[in-house]
């Protein structure tokens, strides 16, 4: 870097799956001015914003270029009359929950981890257990502020600037750097949930229960055992719930109905070897997890971390996959493609896919985001340790099946999609590219994901 630029440290950055770290300069910025300065001094290999690094693949990496981290400058403002929150892009859902839950509000959408930032939530248009009723994150965003590499800052309103708004929603950070956002949060009476659990015999049973009963619940998701075969194929534990009203709490909890604490029970040591998660250990875990769940339970009281963020109880849980890391694969297929879904589950279970965090969920309709992931249908997400030589071919085949059905792969999780399939999966890509070119004509916003998939120059 030339001397007129700040002397940022050079280090390697990876996604949560830790599969392909690359070297970049990291600018930790502490105020919007800093951010704009870093952005306008982007090196020729471009710039990308990074939050808490929870996207699994290479979305928040920029090999040889600049990465801007604004998590150190986080703050937010709640209007308790309306539930509207304005937060800086680096604020995490965790921090926001600690602030707003005691006032009786909850974020519109939360993924399986609360360690994601508001900026990342928009860039990936994240979804959660309530997608079938509430849609994804950007459905609740009213406006955001977008900094561009030429130094300009846009205030983007969802009604007045729909093109820029929806190109940025799910745009993987490639349309500009979000500096702050205003979004709706929703009132809750208590910080506890009433949870119903159903253990399903097989995949069809799970599909039947979800298709038939999800609409009665605000939140719904199924953990699925991908190692079960034969007539048990796709057996699942379905948990569904809603926030409890105050009078539904047992008396002991009623004194502090809005108490919230984001707990962490343990940390994974950084020296975990590869290969500890193997077909045998995962089969054992899955058997235990399935049998531990009650066949049918109604009205169990759970707190927010237990219901929404169970994995966050183990800090750095991604380290259990060892230094080689792991892949997340998440697809969605349209509602009527149940046969394809069944076929995908069968192939994964036949392959003995070592996945213990597989999740099945029914999505509601998608939104106008050009690259936003959710569409009405079934989404399956799983993690697989890297190492099995058959994995690449298997996943390539599944990608093709998904694309042929009009489904798609979630870019926030991707680390290996074949470039040619992207336009098939996201048919509005050209429209997105045109809007991106007006925002960033010099294509300075770049990431490894963008380079790999041809979203930005090689």
């Amino acid at each position, binding site marked *: 870097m030339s001397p007129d630029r700040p002397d940022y440290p*050079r*280090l*390697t*950055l*990876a*996604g*949560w*799956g*830790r*599969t*392909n*770290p*690359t*070297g*970049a300069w990291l600018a930790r910025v502490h105020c919007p001015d800093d951010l704009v300065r870093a952005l306008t001094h982007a090196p020729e*290999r471009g710039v990308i914003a990074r939050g*808490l690094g929870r996207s699994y*693949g290479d979305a928040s990496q*920029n*090999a*040889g*270029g600049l990465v801007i*981290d604004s*998590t150190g400058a*986080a*703050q*937010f*403002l*709640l*209007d*308790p*009359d309306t539930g509207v929150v304005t937060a800086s892009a680096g*604020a*995490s859902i*965790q*921090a*926001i929950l*600690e*602030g707003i839950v005691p*006032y009786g509000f909850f974020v519109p959408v939360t993924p399986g981890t609360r*360690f994601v930032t508001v900026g990342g939530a928009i860039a990936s248009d994240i979804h959660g257990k309530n997608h079938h009723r509430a849609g994804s994150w950007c459905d609740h965003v009213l406006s955001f502020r977008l900094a561009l590499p030429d130094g300009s800052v846009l205030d983007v309103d969802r009604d007045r600037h729909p093109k820029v708004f929806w190109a940025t929603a799910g745009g993987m950070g490639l349309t500009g750097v979000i500096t702050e956002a205003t979004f709706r949060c929703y009132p809750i009476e208590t910080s506890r949930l009433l949870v119903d659990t159903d253990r399903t015999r097989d995949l069809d049973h799970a599909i039947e229960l979800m298709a038939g009963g999800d609409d009665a619940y605000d939140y719904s998701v199924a953990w699925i055992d991908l190692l079960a075969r034969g007539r048990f194929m796709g057996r699942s534990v379905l948990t569904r719930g809603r926030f409890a009203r105050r009078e539904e709490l047992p008396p002991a909890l009623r004194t502090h109905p809005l108490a919230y604490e984001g707990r*962490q029970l343990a*940390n994974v040591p950084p020296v975990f070897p590869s290969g500890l998660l193997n077909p045998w250990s995962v089969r054992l875990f899955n058997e235990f997890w399935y049998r531990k769940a009650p066949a049918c339970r109604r009205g169990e009281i759970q707190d927010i971390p237990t219901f929404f963020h169970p994995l966050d109880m183990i800090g*750095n849980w*991604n380290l259990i996959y060892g*230094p*080689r*890391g792991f*892949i997340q694969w998440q697809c969605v297929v349209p509602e009527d493609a149940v046969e394809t879904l069944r076929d995908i589950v069968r192939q994964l279970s036949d392959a003995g896919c070592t996945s213990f965090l597989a999740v099945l969920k029914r999505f509601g309709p998608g939104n106008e985001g050009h690259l936003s992931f959710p569409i009405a249908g079934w989404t399956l997400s799983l993690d697989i340790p*890297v*190492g099995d*030589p058959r*994995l*690449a071919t298997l996943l390539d085949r599944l990608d093709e099946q998904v694309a042929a059905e009009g489904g798609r792969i979630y870019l926030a999780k991707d*680390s*290996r999609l*074949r*470039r040619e399939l992207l336009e098939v999966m996201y048919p509005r890509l050209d429209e997105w590219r045109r809007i991106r070119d007006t925002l960033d004509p010099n294509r300075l916003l770049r990431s*490894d994901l963008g380079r790999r998939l041809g979203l930005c120059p*090689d």
Partner: protein
Amino acid sequence: MRHHFRVGHPIHRLPDQAGTSTSVLTVEDALGAVQSALVLGGTSEIALAVIDRLAADRCRRVVLAARDTAGAAAAAEHLRAAGVETTDVIEFDAADISRHPALIETVFAEHGDFDLVLLAFGVLGDQATFDRDPVAAANAVTVNYVGAVSTGLSVAQELRRQGHGTLVVLSSVAAERPRKTNFVYGSSKAGLDAFAQGLGDALEGTGAHVLVVRPGFVKTRMTAGLPPQPFSTTPAAVADAVVQGLARKRHTVWAPPILRWVFALLRHLPRPLWRLISAR
């Protein structure tokens, strides 16, 4: 009434950011698939077999740098048939050391990033000829080792700059212990091997990565007419091992893999015994 929360402290209590460790190796895609490759020694049978396999996956852009540009052009045509979209052939002489830095810089400037660079040039030579003609021996060492140093360091500079990419260096089991029947070649490969290992360690934490490949006796043009050796292998088998090594993010690949253990033993044999065994 508006509540203003400043939540600087909770942010600092968050767990460490993901993946700032330097212990993990890299290629462009999580499963080792590469999209672009540069081959130095663009007519090497092993290198072309590697590209063949990568082309079947995601490799779409290949540059072949070779002294024999006609041979490389024929190879490029074959690669296009195998699925590579764009190929280019450039003239490259491994012995012309002073031109290497500019040449590598130009290739990267003109063609953009490379996910993979294969350092695949080398000459075997004939020990009896070398014994008679020390200058020929030194020239062979220049190609195998000195030329690899000048290109390897130039490539490393580019990989460091681009923040990702793998340099695959074709070494040899001959680097493990010199044999009296080809010690000039063996010593040049020993130098190359040590250089590549050191370079790999130096690049740790930059996003770039070095993979050292140690094949045994490979049946190629280079070894045509030589008596076959135990554990001999083919370019296809070596290429399979390299592709698997890329996917598994290895530092070192032996082909066939058993040679790792064979040479763990051989390198510690007493000299008189080694002389006897390696005499063939």
